[in-house]
């Protein structure tokens, strides 16, 4: 069921990976009554940081005040713990499959620097969009699709549809 890569490491069969991911998602709904997520933890961390630096700014802001400030504790959030777990789980997988190595992955046609700049920019744009759409690929699209939420399907189509077109624009970075 395993595929040998160029660097000698192996990946799980994608369908097996999908079944594991789906089972974890199912357990998340069964145990905690909610789906998995990632960008929500970033949101809470940002809010917590701003709350420490400028609490009065949080109280005034129409966005932060929804989930931070006052007696709300954004760092004590389920998603923050979940993301800490995800870091650990991915590290374990990297250890198991012998993939732990510092590197910048990019197309041979571009430099490390260009790749990193685009990674940061991509992160900025993705982070921005995830807040507007109330969730990212995991929280809105994947978890949303699992509970058959219309919003999840719409977000999924919007993300993958746009990425398909935009990938052509940025093709030089990848192939």
């Amino acid at each position: 069921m395993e595929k040998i890569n160029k660097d000698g490491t192996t990946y799980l069969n994608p369908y097996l990976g999908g079944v594991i991911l789906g089972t974890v998602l199912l357990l998340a709904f069964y145990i905690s009554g909610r789906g998995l997520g990632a960008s929500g933890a970033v949101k809470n961390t940002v809010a917590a940081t701003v709350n420490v630096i400028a609490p009065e700014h949080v109280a005034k802001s129409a966005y932060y005040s929804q989930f931070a400030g006052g007696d709300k504790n954004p760092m004590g959030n389920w998603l923050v713990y979940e993301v800490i777990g995800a870091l650990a789980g991915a590290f374990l997988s990297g250890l198991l499959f012998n993939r732990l190595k510092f590197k910048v992955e990019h197309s041979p046609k571009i430099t490390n620097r260009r790749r990193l700049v685009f990674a940061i920019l991509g992160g900025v744009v993705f982070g921005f969009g995830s807040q507007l759409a109330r969730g990212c690929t995991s929280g809105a699209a994947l978890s949303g699709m699992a509970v058959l939420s219309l919003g999840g399907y719409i977000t999924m189509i919007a993300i993958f549809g746009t990425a398909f077109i935009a990938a052509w624009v940025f093709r030089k970075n990848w192939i």
Partner: protein
Amino acid sequence: MIGSIISSGIISPSWDNVFAVVLGMGFGFALEASGFSSSRKIIGTFFGYDFVVVKVFFTAAIVASMGLLYLNYMGLVDFSTLYIQPLFLASAIVGGIIMGVGFSMGGFCPGTSICAAAVGKLDGLAFFGGMFIGVYLFSEAFPWFEKLYYSGSQGSPMVNTVFGISPELFTFILVLAAIGMFFGASWVEKKVKKVEY
């Protein structure tokens, strides 16, 4: 027992965060082990040389959907009490488009960038760091986007109601579509020139 274990009070809510870490570990493991820590593997979906994203993503979605419906049928989960995010049509579409652009620029989505950073991919770390800036920018610019953020509210609709069919029938059609997509993806993968990464 109906509903999630935590909200039914069988286990103290303070265990919720412990489960969050454990579930997160499963999440991170599944993503990394499937190869989601590699941006060029992920982005392969859009150039047709590697469809791992489509395969993993849709397998996970149908496994979870079918699992939830079976658990609902057996009375272990009450589907109606699950959190279904509210749909704000305009912001979901615009946000999705923005995320799509970020996806093909950075090659990650938030969950996969975490996994990439965990195994030492510096581009993953850069993406993860960029996300904090993006979220911060959105929070600061929120007053300008507030109208868009709240426009097109549709409640919390389920996708099967759009087609006027039952959740079970919708899931069945979804499974058929996903299987068709998997075979199609394997076919395209064979046709497209391999990209070494």
